[in-house]
């Protein structure tokens, strides 16, 4: 029952419209310093000449995204000036909090989400109805995206839209467009470069083949496209390129952000502290490190007491190591259907092992994974828990009491919608061959039958149920029991607990994804 395109568009716009209403209602809610960051960039790009964009020091929020994003802010600043000139004044507009700027910026995010909508449209227009709607629910109504983009304030929606567009072109087999869009995306936010190796290997194997000469020719073509994009972005900054690079890659920031993202390094740090504690107990003297984790890295001293120091380079190597099995797989068999899976995996690795990772970066792998989630029962079950865990890990971003019901309700609502969506899609079917599928339905099972069929019912096994109950326990502890029993002592402890708990799920997801890719 394939609906025609205008009807799909209308349906999709309905989803977007409903989400937009909710986002409109969220306009007065809390926004973080990222709001002032973007406002300052509006002012910067409007008022100063190009040469000073990356060297200006008026505000501590310097431009640390690549030039296309700067052009984007420049484009927005036209409208900002029409709405209220003070927004774009570099000095007068500092920490400007009036209604005009709030409305303008919030609405600009809502409108830029249309890019995401288009990306999703391209991805889902050929799917069957239930899968399509399920994907729309997962992405357009994603609570994590609402929390990060529309409350905390960022522009991830349209960046992820570009990524989705790129994936959709790759899935259609149009590699040049896919590569082009990815290059464009990189020039918007270089953080997306983690999937670079995947793209490179895939395009090399999938696009640049057909004999040596043709392959080389295609390689040259692709290369030219990419170089052209980069030239368009960085060309105007040719003489200041070093300044630009230094602003874009501020490595002095430390291994972990002020709030620890639920990644591998959390466990590394815990292990280090634990070992130090144990060794001290056994009488071995361990010097306490001069630097701390939450601050920047001071010189060469390592904040780790026992375990070896971690440098940006070592994190890069770890990410590449984690990626390598996937790259080998791509090299062997680059088929377009699994592109989304590989890209999500790449971002998962980047999140787990990267340097100075924000918890917001979990969006980078959760959203593309939604493309995969609707394909099979195991994927759906895995995604259900992963999206709940990553959304929960974003809760500390909104620490004010008035947002508390909003974030809880968003997550609950989304979980229920997911549950019903997946249950409707994967409803019980009664053929006799189902009996051995029952074993693979349990979450903890390692054997994954790569049957992409609709047999089996959508259930969460014991592991999953325990995990979800655990989330409730962690939250109760953080909100109620910790202040009650411990008062103001150890204020970092609940956040740490959330980090660790979600980190467990992320690590599990990484292993699961790797297994799935290898088994494909």
């Amino acid at each position, binding site marked *: 029952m394939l609906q025609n395109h205008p009807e799909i568009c*209308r*349906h999709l716009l*309905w989803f977007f*419209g*409903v989400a*937009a*209403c*909710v986002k*409109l*209602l*969220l*306009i*007065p*809610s809390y926004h973080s310093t990222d709001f002032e960051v973007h406002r300052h960039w509006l002012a910067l790009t409007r008022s100063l000449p190009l040469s000073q964009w990356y060297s200006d020091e008026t505000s501590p929020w310097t431009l640390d995204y690549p030039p296309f994003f700067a052009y984007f802010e420049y484009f927005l600043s036209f409208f900002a000036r029409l709405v209220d000139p003070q927004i774009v004044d570099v000095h007068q507009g500092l920490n400007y909090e009036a209604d005009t700027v709030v409305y303008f910026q919030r609405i600009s995010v809502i409108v830029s989400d249309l890019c995401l909508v288009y990306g999703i449209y391209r991805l889902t227009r050929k799917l069957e109805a239930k899968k399509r*709607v399920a994907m729309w629910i997962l992405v357009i109504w994603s609570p994590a995206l609402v929390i990060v983009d529309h409350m905390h304030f960022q522009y991830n929606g349209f960046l992820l839209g570009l990524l989705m567009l790129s994936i959709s072109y790759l899935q259609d087999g149009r590699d040049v467009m896919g590569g082009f869009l990815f290059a464009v995306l990189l020039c918007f936010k270089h953080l997306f470069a983690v999937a670079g190796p995947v793209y490179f290997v895939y395009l090399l194997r999938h696009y640049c083949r057909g004999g040596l000469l043709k392959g080389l020719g295609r390689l040259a073509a692709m290369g030219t496209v990419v170089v052209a994009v980069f030239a368009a972005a960085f060309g105007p900054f040719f003489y200041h390129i070093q300044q630009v690079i230094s602003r874009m890659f501020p490595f002095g920031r430390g291994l972990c952000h002020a709030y620890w993202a639920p990644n591998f390094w959390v466990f590394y740090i815990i292990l280090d502290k634990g070992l130090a504690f144990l060794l001290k107990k056994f009488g071995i003297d361990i010097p306490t490190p001069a630097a701390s984790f939450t601050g920047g890295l001071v010189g060469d001293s390592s904040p780790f007491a026992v375990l070896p120091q971690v440098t940006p380079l070592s994190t890069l190597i770890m990410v590449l190591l984690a990626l390598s099995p996937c790259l080998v797989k791509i090299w062997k068999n680059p088929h377009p259907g699994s592109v989304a899976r590989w890209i999500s995996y790449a971002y998962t690795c980047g999140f787990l092992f990267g340097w100075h990772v924000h918890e917001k970066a979990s969006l980078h792998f959760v959203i593309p994974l939604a493309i995969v989630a609707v394909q099979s029962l195991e994927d759906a079950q895995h995604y259900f828990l992963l999206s709940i865990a990553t959304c929960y890990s974003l809760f500390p971003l909104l620490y004010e*009491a*008035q*947002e508390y*019901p*909003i974030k809880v*309700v*968003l997550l*609950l*609502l989304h979980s*229920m*919608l997911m549950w*019903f*969506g997946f249950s*409707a899609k994967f409803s019980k079917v009664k053929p006799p061959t189902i009996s051995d599928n029952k074993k693979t339905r349990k979450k903890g099972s390692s054997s994954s039958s790569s049957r992409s069929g609709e047999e089996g019912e959508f259930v969460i096994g014991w592991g999953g149920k325990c995990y979800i109950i655990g989330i409730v326990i962690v939250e109760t502890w953080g909100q109620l029991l910790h202040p009650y029993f411990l008062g103001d002592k150890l204020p970092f402890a609940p956040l740490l607990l959330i980090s660790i708990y979600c980190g467990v799920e992320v690590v599990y997801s990484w292993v699961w994804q790797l297994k799935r890719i290898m088994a494909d």
Partner: protein
Amino acid sequence: MFGLLVRWTVSLHSYSGAGNPPKFGDYEAQRHWMEITVNLPAQDWKLLMRFTVLSSDLLIFFPSVLYFIHAYYDVHSRGRKADVAWHILLILINPCLVLIDHGHFQYNCISLGLALAAVAAILSQRDLLACVLFCLSLNHKQMSTYFAPAFFSHLLGKCLRRKHPLLEISKLGLVVLGTFAMVWWPYLHSRDAALQVLSRLAPFERGIYEDYVANFWCTSSVLIKWKRLFPTQSLRLFSMVATILACLPSMIQQILAPSSKGFLYGLLNSSLSFYLFSFQVHEKSILLPLLPATLLAMEWPRPFKLLTHYALFSMFPLVCRDNLILPYIALYALCIFLYHPPGGRWDDSKRQGSTPLSLVSVLLTLAYLGSLVLHIVYLTVRPPERYPFLFEALIMLLSFSHFVLFAFHTNTKQWMLSGHLIGSDKGKKQH
């Protein structure tokens, strides 16, 4: 799958509440009542107050809705699962209720919830329970008297059909008295105390209308200056007589031929007549007719949408005063989306039988467009010096005319139900 969109309404309520500045006036009034008991710093108050509205909504209104839906669909025994879900959604995302309770700040959800539960009890043939619930609702907010005629006439009609009418009536009477006694217990120790409460409840000194409400007295005051012509006493009498006359037809119908659906229409009619003709009506009182309208939403979708629009429209000046324009727009847009779900099922499935291009529908469309324009005009254009309240008056006029049309339409529908078409002057089918 759509069934759980219902939960969504929970989130909506919290947004309107948490995200918007409190309004002095009602907010301060409520807060003052509470401050007599508890002391808290100002910032926490806002949060606490919002939470109390949200929790009372959750605890009282939501279960009542579920009870109602259960009773309603039992009786009418139709409705696919999706229809039920949409109906719940429509009742819960009643934009006026959300705006007033969580934006402007009031506790209407409690009395409305109790009244709704009473309605549900009647639908499931539990009359005594309905009495108790309705009395509780009355005692929470005396605005529920808007529904009283409907309850009264329906129950009376039912009683008269039973074997021992007097017994039934006395049973009901006892229950009512008993509930009232329970609630008023602390004040019943002396006549003075009881009278004090009563006088605070009905502040007749305030005058027959305030501000610009879309009811009869206010609208006609453009031509007939009631306040100047008559003293308050006589105006009180006029309004009482007018109100009773207006809700008399529907009451009679229910007494003669009580039925569940007729009862719902009766609620709508009596509350509309109170709204139009009663004393000291506020714009917020449009909530009361709107509630039974949402209950009947699945029956007549197109007029219902129009009613919601005009109800919101009549509240627009209040919304602007409270700085709630953003949630107004967002809720309005949301309602439009919800009334036109992608499947488009319950909307277009019933055609009311009239040709789309009849004169009436053209006029209605023009009026609708006019009201949209008025929204913008009200916000941007400055009214002329001579008539500083010109736009409020226009809004009021437009809303009032539509409410009167609705009153005719719904009264007709109620009479059509029982098959009695009394009075061809009321029988003109407005669609």
